[in-house]
Structure formats: structure tokens, C-alpha cells
């Protein structure tokens, strides 16, 4: 029906407007004031999540508006004052079939891009770099097994120690540094309780579970600094263990690796990582 497809297009347009409005207000890699939509994407996976989310938003908005319109008609046309004699209709088999079949079709239409997105996220491409993140109470430890396996702690910077421009509760002392446009394989585990590693701009989230090595991957296509926060309740300072990934050029990354090897070899991590699990990702 032409009216229906126009309505859907309008809904999709409104959705795109809302999310892009949110995105234009969003500081890259971190949330911005009054943000309503997802953070800006810097990976192909997040691009896919964003477009699938817009698609879902259009469908869900259409459904909610449809129900609202029906209720409005009922309130206006079938209230007892204007419609005092109730009908006795309790069945309408064609209608019942329709309102079973149409939702099934809508769900099938959702399922196709949904499964595609799922497999893109979970099929790890051949990695250019592997890093390991360990969630601890209450900081993240990162190691670089490809580069001599140096390890360092990444701890939140207290409010009073922030420099101007550094976002509160998101800034850390030692950031994760990765090269741009490279497939990074992230191995994640937990040292004590369950934590969760996420970077919204990358579209990744994976739990850090003791006794288990989980993994995710990303390919950042823009240089910059990207923030996330621990996403599984892990004790008193759950709010205070952010994740910061700085994406730099390959040359700058190599320089940083050289410096890091020296810096982090000299400083042993505050809490040595103790894991009692296999080193291969669990499935």
C-alpha cells in the first residue's frame, strides 16, 4: 500500500534524523550531552549495528504508532457516549490469521539482517594484532603477546587529577594503543569476578569471566581516542574502571610499542595477573 510504504519511509527518515542528530552532537568515541542515539561508528561492525538498529527503530516505531492510532480511534469512536450499543463480535477468523501471519513475516524480515550481523561479529577475521584484556577489581590489565608480552594496568584517573579536556570517569593513566585499519583480536578474561569489556564506538562487548578466555575483534578505521566502561557489576568500584583505546597510525604504534616495552618492563603490574585457565579462546 502506498500510504503504508510512505509512512515507513517517514518513520525511517525520522529515525535517521534522530540518530544522526544524536550522532552530530556526539563527541567521537564518547557520549555527548543529551545524546539520544548510538555513538558514532569507527568500525565496519559498528556501521552494521547502527544501520540494523535504525532499521529496527523504524519497525518498532511503526508498530507503536499503529497501536496508538487504533487506541485513539477506540477512545474517540467507541466511547459509551457516542457509541452506546456494544457489538457482540467475538470472532473474525481472517483477521486472526492476518494478525498472526503479519508479525511472523515482520520477524522473518528482521531475522535476515540480524543473523548476518551476528556472524560478522563472531567470525573473527585473520588478526593483524592480538591483545589481551584482563578485568580486575577495579581496573583493566592489558598485555601485548605479539610484542614481547609486556603488560600494564589501566586505572581510572581521579577527578582531582584530571587535566583540562579529559572526560571525568572515562580517563585512565595508561591507554590501550592500537594501529588504525588493522584487525585487532582482543582476548578477554576476568581475574576475580565477572567484568565486561566494551567500546561502544567499535560495537564490541564481551564479558571478562574468570576461568574463561573470551574473544572479540575490531578494525578501527579512524584515529582517535575511544572510551568504554566496565559493563558487568563487579563490586564497589564498578563505576570506576573505564576502557580507553587510542587508535594511531602504524608508525606511531610501532614507536609506542618500543617505548611501552621499556616503560612497562620496568614497572611490574600492581596486581599480577593470575588466571587458572587454558590460553585458547573458549567456545
Amino acid at each position, binding site marked *: 500500500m502506498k500510504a503504508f510504504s510512505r509512512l515507513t519511509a517517514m518513520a525511517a527518515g525520522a529515525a535517521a534524523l534522530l540518530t544522526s542528530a*544524536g550522532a552530530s552532537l556526539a563527541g567521537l568515541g564518547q557520549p555527548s550531552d543529551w545524546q539520544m542515539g548510538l555513538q558514532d561508528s569507527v568500525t565496519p561492525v559498528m556501521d*552494521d549495528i547502527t544501520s540494523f538498529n535504525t532499521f529496527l527503530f523504524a519497525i*518498532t516505531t511503526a508498530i507503536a504508532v499503529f*497501536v496508538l492510532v487504533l487506541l485513539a480511534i477506540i477512545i474517540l469512536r467507541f466511547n459509551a457516549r457516542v457509541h452506546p450499543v456494544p*457489538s457482540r463480535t467475538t470472532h473474525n477468523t481472517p483477521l486472526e490469521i492476518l*494478525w498472526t501471519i503479519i508479525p511472523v513475516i515482520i520477524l522473518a524480515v528482521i531475522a535476515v539482517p*540480524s543473523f548476518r550481523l551476528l556472524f560478522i561479529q563472531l567470525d573473527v577475521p585473520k588478526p593483524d594484532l592480538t591483545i589481551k584484556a584482563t578485568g580486575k*577489581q577495579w581496573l583493566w590489565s592489558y598485555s601485548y603477546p605479539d610484542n614481547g608480552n609486556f603488560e600494564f594496568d589501566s586505572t581510572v584517573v581521579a577527578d582531582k587529577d584530571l587535566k583540562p579536556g579529559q572526560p571525568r570517569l572515562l580517563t585512565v593513566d595508561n591507554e590501550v594503543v592500537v594501529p588504525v585499519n588493522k584487525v585487532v583480536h582482543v582476548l578477554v578474561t576476568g581475574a576475580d569476578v565477572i567484568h565486561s569489556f566494551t567500546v561502544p564506538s567499535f560495537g564490541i562487548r564481551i564479558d571478562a569471566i574468570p576461568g574463561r578466555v573470551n574473544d572479540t575483534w575490531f578494525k578501527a578505521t579512524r584515529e582517535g581516542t575511544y572510551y568504554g566502561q566496565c559493563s558487568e557489576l563487579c*563490586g564497589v568500584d564498578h563505576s570506576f574502571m573505564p576502557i580507553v583505546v587510542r587508535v594511531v597510525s602504524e608508525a606511531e604504534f610501532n614507536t609506542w610499542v618500543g617505548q611501552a616495552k621499556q616503560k612497562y618492563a620496568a614497572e611490574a603490574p600492581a596486581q599480577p595477573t593470575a588466571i587458572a585457565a587454558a590460553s585458547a579462546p573458549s567456545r
Partner: protein
Amino acid sequence: MDAIAHGAHVDHNGHAHPHGWRRYLYSTNHKDIGTMYLVFAMIAGVIGGIASMLIRGELMFPGLQIFHETHYYDVTVTEHGLIMIFFVLMPSMIGGFGNWMIPLMIGSPDMAFPRMNNISFWLLPASFALMMCSLFFVGEPGSYGAGTGWTLYAPLSTSGHPGPAMDFVILSIHLAGASSILGAINFITTIFNMRAPGMTMHRMPLFVWAELVTVFLLLLSLPVLAGAITMLLTDRNFGTTFFDPQGGGDPLLFQHLFWFFGHPEVYILILPGFGIISQIVATFSKKPVFGYLGMAYAMVAIGGIGFVVWAHHMYNVGMSASVQAYFIAATMVIAVPTGVKIFSWIATMWGGAVEFKTPMLWAVGFIFLFVIGGVTGVVLANAGVDRELHGTYYVVAHFHYVMAIAAIFAIFGGWYYWFPKITGYMYNETIGKLHFWLTFIGVNIAFFPQHFLGMAGMPRRIADYPDAFAGWNLISSIGAYIAGFAALVFFYGLAQAFLRKEPAAANPWGAGATTLEWTMPSPPPFHTYDTLPLVR
């Protein structure tokens, strides 16, 4: 009931039941027990509501204002969840309205096991007492109470909470679970065996169908929770390592066991609401519910499928792609019978002569707001996008829309609908409508912006947040306070009705109220159906 007992009853005149405290402590009367459940739920609701006011107070501005020791924020969040689920929603909808209305609706003099009904109720104050006790014992080192979230994940709930507070929470939940399991046995037996002559299963009110499916879910899911939390108890106190990898265990085992209960639990929390809404919509549209069989069996389908979708709460634990794909598909299937119900309610009202009295306002509000909560659930069902939204305020928004909004609307709808029957008094329609509108405005302002917070990346269960989240958090807190004020209006209306004492007719709602409870006086006598009704 045999003739001798029946004869003995008739002789007792005004002394047919005990008085004073014995009437309630030793009760074997479904109406008194139902009342006790409702009173209990109201008291617990105030306490759980105060917890939510504290949470929103903390989150109103960036920085720590109330909970300078953040463990107590986690404890408040945990208590808020456990209280609302186990001591407000379940007791009011199942113990309260279920006990009151099921026997009246099916033409039964009481429940199948009236004395077991009593212990089902009294286990709850005991459970609540243990829950409150937990606040006075060490949880995490150096602070009191359990701050694990209502989901109680190990290892935070085992090695992460070495003190006894967590053990009190576990024992509390054991009692609450036992209460519900015994209640389930009672309701199932009553509904299957004690319907009056002529009241076939396919003539039962939809509220009874809803309660029947709900209690089957309770019966089958609660033992799994009991097992899971017992394993927490033994890991904590008796040297087992079910959830400890260093002993060969796995934290994920807890999550699978918990959510195998946890997902049916959320249907337990909404199905009675579906039943209440069906009764209200039919009554105030002056039409029977559209598609009765579809409605009944949609609830059966929702309950059944609800048992095989649990891991959609676990999309980010590291499960394989094929397992996640299965759970995506199974979860989305539930949207179909749910849609059938929404459309059937709308079709019931369509062509009706709808009176928008207070109960009907709650019901119409339910239908729209449950659709909003439901569609965000469809979004979250897709693991690909849940990747981004899990553990954020988008999830908090979703479940508050379906629980704190829809389920609460069903409870208040049922409350105003059945208040005249239960108490014999009419409530004040103006105060009732004011309560509705204030609540409607408050909860929407409180929870709709939380979708934005989640999309923007705000995690759950954090006491302080990055400054960018301040705007919508302020709005959300204001909405919460409006809803909190609305609760005061509710209690004012309650007091006013009891002071005014305007008598209610047996059927204050007119021709649309066709179920058996409306044939009884308001309030009904202590014993009803000494002579069974004949249902044609």
C-alpha cells in the same frame, strides 16, 4: 465438602471464624489470605519505592551525593530489584488477586488446601525479615549488605561477598520460593479440581487461565533457582566449587541455572497482568473478550516458549554463534502470541461502548506502554544489537516499561476494579483518575529517557556517571519523583475510601461484568458458595 461439615458450618452463625490475631495468623480463608498478601505487597512496595527514590536521587546529578560509599548504592539497587519482584509484584498479582478472585470466579468455596495457603503467605514476612537482616551483616569486605544485583552472579556473590549478608539473601529467597511453589500446588489443584458444575476449562475467566499458566511456570522454574542459590550457599560455606574455576567449576553455570528460572520469572510477572487486563477490558467495553481461545492458548504458548529462551540474557558471555542464533529465533517467536493478545484486546474494545473509568484507564495505558516495552524487547532479542545495548540503560528502560509500568498498571487496574468487591466501598473516581494520570506522566518521564542513556552507552548499576549523561538522568529523576508523589495520592485515595465508606453494589460495573465474583455481595461473606453455583 461432605454433608456433616456443611451442617456444622451452618450452625456456627456469627462465630463461623476465629477473631483477632488468630483470624489472620491461623487463617484458612482465601479472602483473608488474599487481603494479607495485598497489604504485605503495599508495605513492601513502599520500601522498594523508597529504594528507587534513593537510586534516582543519587543519579540525579553527576558525582556522589548520597552513596559516598558506593557499595551501599549496589545494595540499594539489589534490594530494590528483589523487593519489587518477590515482595510486591508476585504477592499482589498471584497471592493477592489470585487468592481473592480465583475461587470466586470458578465457583469454589475456597482453595484446595486452605491451610497450606496460610503458610504460603506467612513464609513471605519471614523471607522479607531475612532480606532485611542481610543489611546488618558484612557483604563485601568492609561494608554491609549484598550488592550483587538481583541476579546474584557468581563469583561476585561467592568470593566477592565473603560476609554473611549474601547468605541471608540466599535463605530469604529460599523461603520466598517455597511460598510460591506451595501456592502453585494449591492454585493448580484448585483450578483443575474445584470448578463449579458447568464451569468447563473453556468457560473459565481469562484471569484464571492467566494464573494457571503462571503457577505452572512457578512450579517448574523455582526449583531450578533453589538449586542454583543452594549451590551458591555450598560454594560459600561448604567447600564446593560449582562456580569456581580453580576447583573445576564455571561462573557461567550459575548464569544458565539462574536464567532458566529468570526468564520464566518475567512471564510470571506479566501473565497475571494479562489476565487482569482481559477482565477489565471486557467489563468496560461491555463486550466479551475477542477470541477467547486464542487468548487462553496464547498465554499457554508464551509460558511454554518462555522456558527455552533463557540465554538471551547471556548474549555476551562468549556463547557460540549458532547458540546465539537459536536464542534469537526462539525469543522472537514469543512476539507472535503476544501480538495476538494485544490485537485481541484492541478488537475487544472495537465496536464496544467503552466507559473510561479508572480501571479502564489503567488497562488502556497498559496496552500502549506494554507495546513500547515489548518492542524494545524485540530489539534486545537480536544479539547483534544487544552486543551494544546489553548492560546499558536501554535494558533498564525495557524492563521497567514492562514491569514497573505495564505490570504495575495491571495491578492498579485490578486494584480499582476489585476494590469495591474486596472492601465493600467505592473508591473516589476523581482521586483514582488523578492517581492514574500522575503515575502515567511520572513513569514515562522517568523511563523513556533511559532508552537514550542506554543508546549513548551508559552502563547499568553505576552510582556515578560521565558528565555527558547528566541531562537525561536529571529528567529521569524528576519523572521518578512525580511517580513517587502519585503513590502518595494512591494512599490518600485509599484512606479517603475507607473514611467515606460509600457502599458498593454487588456489581458496580454494569452489564459488562459477567464473571461470578460480581454475583456475590460487596464485600462477600466470609464463606462463599456454601451452595455451589450452577454455571450455564
